[in-house]
């Protein structure tokens, strides 16, 4: 089943509040994502990055602001996104294989075809042995990889990833970056990636947004115009990294408490 190519996404003045107390989670959120590019959001924990993805996925509604997809103003990207949340959200009653095939099955792909597609990808994600296992028999890292595979195989033009490698050790993480880059190249989808890891943002993204804490806003936007695969030791990479770390250092937990 062919995927619709992604369109230009523009977010302007987007704001959301907590339902509980009405306080602002994020506000004046502005960014643009050209088709097929990867945008990374980094910022302190609890600054509303996950909430932003929830809004874009259509699971929460924004308080103000607008989102456009191509020429059309939309309330959210529902139907155009696949969304990987921080929790792996694997269905406990499905094997790894059937979990990874979920997105395909929901799109009406026949079971046999969906399973075959999954099987082709399992080795690359280190899950070949685990195909028939139930999620609770797997390590956190394996579950996360299964969830990532499910998300990528949904064949949606936009992919939202919320700390997709959080549960992985450094070595597996690097291997998964390569896998993601490979699958992404084949898919041509647009990606919005939330991460805490500056290296990860610079390895994967075309643009990195640094968010301020409580309420979150865009503090800095950095265009990463380096060829892939990127070398973490290359001078330009190191320079970018130093810049991002400096940006993040302007906020400490103390200032966060003072603002709120």
């Amino acid at each position, binding site marked *: 089943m062919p995927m619709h190519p992604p369109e230009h996404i523009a977010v302007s003045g987007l704001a959301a509040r907590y339902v509980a107390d009405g306080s602002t989670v994020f506000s004046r959120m502005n960014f643009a994502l050209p088709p097929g590019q990867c945008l990374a959001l980094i910022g302190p924990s609890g600054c509303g990055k996950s909430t932003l993805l929830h809004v874009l996925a*259509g*699971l929460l509604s924004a308080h103000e602001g607008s989102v456009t997809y191509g020429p059309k103003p939309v309330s959210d990207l529902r139907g155009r996104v696949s969304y990987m949340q921080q929790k792996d*959200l694997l269905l*406990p009653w499905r094997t790894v294989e059937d979990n990874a095939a979920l997105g395909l099955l929901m799109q009406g792909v026949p079971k046999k075809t969906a399973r075959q597609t999954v099987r082709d990808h399992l080795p690359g994600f280190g899950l070949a042995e685990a195909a028939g296992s139930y999620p609770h028999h797997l390590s956190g890292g394996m579950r996360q990889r299964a969830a990532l595979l499910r998300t990528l195989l949904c064949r949606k033009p936009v992919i939202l990833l919320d700390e997709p490698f959080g549960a992985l050790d450094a070595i597996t993480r690097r291997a998964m970056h390569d896998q993601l880059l490979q699958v992404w190249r084949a898919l041509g989808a647009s990606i919005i990636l939330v991460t805490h890891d500056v290296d990860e943002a610079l390895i994967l993204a075309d643009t990195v947004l640094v968010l301020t804490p409580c309420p979150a806003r865009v503090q800095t936007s950095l265009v990463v115009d380096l060829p892939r695969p990127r070398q973490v030791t290359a001078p330009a990479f190191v320079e970018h990294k130093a810049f991002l770390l400096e940006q993040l250092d302007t906020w400490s937990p103390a200032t966060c408490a003072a603002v709120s």
Partner: protein
Amino acid sequence: MRRRFLNCLWPLAVLAGLLVFWEIGVAVWDMPHYILPPPSRIAQALLAHWPRLVPHALTTCSEIVLGFGVALAAGLFLGAGIAGSRILERALLPLVIGSQTIPVFAIAPLLVLWFGYGIGSKVVMAALIVFFPITVSTVQGLKAADRDLLDLLRVLEAGRWRIFWTVRVPQALPHIFAGAKIGMAVSVIGAVIGEWVGARQGLGYYMVQANAQMQVDRVFAAIVLLSMIGVGLYALVVLVERWLTPWRRT
């Protein structure tokens, strides 16, 4: 394997111990057999009356199974309705719960009056008792669905029906089986009480007859059979549960 063997062994050992105590106790305290027969005498009665007991047992067994089946179908259906619709929940759930304040045994004579001395009144009786745990556990199970899993399916644009079968039903199955296991256990009670009140066939009827003639060993023989039926049917439910929820096997 060894563990499972031991798991079976312990209760059997305790049971054997109790039977030995019973056998010796009856002899030592010189208990009359028409009050409390020893296990050996009950075993003899069971063997001697076996040909007569079997048809009664089959009747009771079919009452239990039919009553359970009717209640299962009705409970699943109603439970799904209550879980799926706020209006049905408001309108029906209080009634379902309220209905439990009426002791089913109290209306047993009425059931016999309405559904006759045959199998019908006992099936209804068993079904009325089993219906409650199954309905309540179905409602609970279908409502227990993890919010985040539902969100996941919503983002994938799954329809309501799809979500129902992909998330709600599998998540509800363990709850439903918990209800079904309780239901199967009480189903036996329903059938037997129904037979006590008025019947021409069945282990309950057999027990009342034997009791009236002070043939207590025959009463006990019927009880042994009844408990065997109960344990067997319960095991059947557990087997089906294991088959339908393979992810919960360890």
